[in-house]
């Protein structure tokens, strides 16, 4: 056989790689699980009424919007992109929803549909600029980040607030359904759908391919552009969904809804082990990441720590988790210096 030796060397190399790959995938998520468990234990011990059912539901209820955004963001980041505009879009959609319902006198369900449509359109706008003009996602969404928020403020002059939504609608955000917060089932279903989409469909497969190598995917006959547009469209749609739930939870829609949510979402995603360069990452990782942050925020309130501490610890947590798994990776590869330095592999 040709190159028997070659196969020998490669065989070892391959084993090294596959073992490494598996253990790594395992590693990051297990780190997160450990962190989560540690947090839970600590707050359960130190906090007052942290472990009550009500509180668990609070955690859930408070992290639904961010969770939704993070899930959509996961798909975006898998393609090597990023979407800074989701928070602003949430605000815009909330205002649109209010306008449709109050000023256009539409029934709530119609307003919802229209809002979802608008969100999708806005996301599609991002996607089109990114895919067809080949503009860097960071910049495009930085632009729409202030454009969408601006439109929301312009529509309401900043002052207009939409309130007095029908109870049947507020139920969605405030009441219990089968003992669960009403928005929980929606979130769970969406999370499940996202998991299937990313891990079990050709769509998800192609997202990874695009994330690893857009050109390679194109040569493999994957419709890169339409996929990218689709992903940002999905993000827009999700933002709209989050906007509706948000409005239902607060019982009011205003131009300042969801300020800064994009950063929370991104934090959750990267904490969940999704590579910002694309290709690598999992939906359950993201969920764990979001959960870790949510529990931290909530738990600190139950040990009477002010919010800024929560924020600070979130930042540190992110640093620790990342450098932790990176460090373990280094150990595993024994400082294998043959792979290029990180900047070289970066696709901005």
């Amino acid at each position, binding site marked *: 056989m040709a190159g028997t030796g070659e196969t020998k060397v490669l065989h070892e190399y391959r084993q090294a790689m596959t073992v490494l790959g598996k253990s790594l995938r395992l590693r990051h998520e297990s780190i997160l699980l450990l962190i989560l468990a540690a947090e839970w234990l600590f707050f359960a011990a130190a906090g007052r009424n942290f472990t009550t059912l009500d509180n668990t539901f609070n955690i859930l209820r408070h992290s639904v919007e961010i969770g939704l955004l993070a899930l959509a963001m996961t798909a975006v980041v898998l393609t090597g992109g990023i979407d800074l505009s989701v928070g602003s879009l949430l605000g815009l959609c909330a205002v649109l929803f209010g306008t449709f319902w109050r000023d256009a006198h539409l029934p709530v369900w119609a307003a919802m549909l229209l809002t979802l449509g608008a969100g999708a359109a806005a996301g599609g706008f991002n996607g089109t600029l990114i895919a067809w*003009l080949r503009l860097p996602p960071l*910049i495009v969404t930085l632009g729409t980040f202030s*454009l969408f*928020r601006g439109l929301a403020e312009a529509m309401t002059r900043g002052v207009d607030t939409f309130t007095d939504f029908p109870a049947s609608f507020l139920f969605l955000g405030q009441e219990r359904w089968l003992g669960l917060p009403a928005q929980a089932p929606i979130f769970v279903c969406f999370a499940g759908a996202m998991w299937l989409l990313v891990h079990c469909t050709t769509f998800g497969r192609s997202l990874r391919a695009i994330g690893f190598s857009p050109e390679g995917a194109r040569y493999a006959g994957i419709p890169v552009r339409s996929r990218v547009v689709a992903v940002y469209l999905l993000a827009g749609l999700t933002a709209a969904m989050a906007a509706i739930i948000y409005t239902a939870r607060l019982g009011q829609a205003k131009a300042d809804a969801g300020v800064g949510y994009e950063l929370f979402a991104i934090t959750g995603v990267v904490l969940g082990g999704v590579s910002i360069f694309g290709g690598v990452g999992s939906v359950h990782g993201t969920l764990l990441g979001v959960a870790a942050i949510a529990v931290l925020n909530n738990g600190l309130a139950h040990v009477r720590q002010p919010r*800024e501490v929560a924020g*600070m610890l979130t930042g540190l947590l992110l640093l620790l988790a990342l450098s932790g798994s990176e460090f373990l990776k280094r150990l595993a590869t024994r400082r294998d210096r043959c792979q290029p330095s990180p900047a070289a592999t970066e696709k901005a």
Partner: protein
Amino acid sequence: MKAYSREVSVALTLGGLLLGLAIFAPSFYQAQPLLSLAAREAPTLVAACGMALVILCRQIDISIGAQFSVCSVCAGLLAGAHWPIPLVLSASITIGASLGALNGSLVAGLGLPSIVVTLATMVTWREGLRWLRQGIWVDLPEGFQWFGLRQSAGQWTIIILALTVLVLLALFMKHLAAGRFIYAVGSDAEAARLAGIRPRRITFAVFVFAGALVGLAAMMNVAQSPQVDPNSGTGLELKTIAAVVVGGVAISGGRGNLWGVFAGLLLLACLGPALTHLHVQAYWEKAIQGSVILLAVVADGGHRRNQGSP
């Protein structure tokens, strides 16, 4: 010429804006308001230069806003403790540099993606500052404002300082080996390594330097008013990134120059006042700024498309 097409187009847009103002709102052109406008934007320019270096090096630093706040507050407190101005200045710069060094070591040393690292440090510094200071304004001693000079003198000092930084950096990036190495690393780190350049060191140095510039900028801002607002850095990162990319620096590193950044910043800086002068309602401002950024990149996208994938 082709290489500078982007800078030129931005400059033309700026020219158009200024011309429009000259026709529809001549009141925009008054010595004193323009002077203070320039003085107010000078710190942003310095920070933007730092950001430009980082982006040219194919990294990004979204923590400079938080760094700015930290430096401002520290500078304020030290000044309150009656340190001499030069000492306060150097202290502020040192603090900025060391904050940058932390980012740098995590990015260059541990090889973590810069956007994630700086996201984390941003949150940490910002919230940490709030926690320690509760957002109370810092009162500065008499005679600290304008570095103890007369107002207009102080404003000129700040403006000239900023311009000097800009010019020196621009020359440095063009005519000094170190500057070219930053371009090289931003263009292809592995190739740089093979050429004997040490990408990690360069990256680290760039982060440190950017931090130092932020420290300087903070000081230039603090010196403009008798009190320090601990939130003064909020949104600075977005402002500077916008200026840098509108100025034609490629977010993928290695391409662009500081003159473009200058033009981009001027454009964005004049936009706000211009809208006021043209009696545009406040609630349109964000939308218009967003569209300007988009237009700038879309205009750029046109000819970049012909060059294959980014």
